[in-house]
């Protein structure tokens, strides 16, 4: 397994749904990803299906469908076996260094231990990710030039 890539991020389904329906910390965290073309949101179909179902249940089907269409345009798709935790498995299969979740117990015992033994992912709540994300440092660690600032409209 190759090393996790610090520019690849997975948001578990709770964070994806909260980004749309609540805003706040989830939106602040994902705005960092949306604002930079060199950041990649990684998600399996199962992960998007979980978020889509939650959005349909708490809002409406049309919004859930349009959200799914929009997020599919920019996510990097990964596959994993049925039954794997979609957030953890997307991070592992997608070589993501960051997994955002409101479930602070996700990284602890009981949450898919066989997978976690191989993972280099940092599991953080959205507010922790938003606070600690340093775009300039990350850009300069992964590119040869200076950080040019955000290069994408996070509302586009």
């Amino acid at each position, binding site marked *: 397994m190759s090393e996790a890539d610090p520019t690849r991020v997975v948001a578990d*389904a*709770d964070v994806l749904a909260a980004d749309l329906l*609540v805003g706040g910390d989830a939106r602040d965290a994902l705005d960092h990803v949306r604002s930079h073309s060199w950041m990649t949101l990684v998600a399996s179909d199962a992960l998007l299906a979980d978020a889509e*179902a*939650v959005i349909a249940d*708490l809002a409406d089907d049309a919004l859930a469908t*349009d959200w799914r269409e929009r997020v599919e345009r920019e996510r990097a798709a990964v596959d994993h076996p049925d039954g794997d935790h979609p957030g953890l498995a997307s991070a592992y299969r997608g070589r993501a260094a960051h997994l955002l979740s*409101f479930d602070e117990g996700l990284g602890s015992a009981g949450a898919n231990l066989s997978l976690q033994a191989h993972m280099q992912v940092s599991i953080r709540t959205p507010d922790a990710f938003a606070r600690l994300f340093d775009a300039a440092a990350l850009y300069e660690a992964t590119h040869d030039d200076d950080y040019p600032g955000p290069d994408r409209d996070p509302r586009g």
Partner: protein
Amino acid sequence: MTWADLFERATDSETTVAAIRERLAARRDGDV
């Protein structure tokens, strides 16, 4: 459809992170 459009449409949902977590847990536990 832009993110701005989606966020605007979602403003009426008045849901919470707790409700989202509860609904997701039920789905993943196979309760729904």
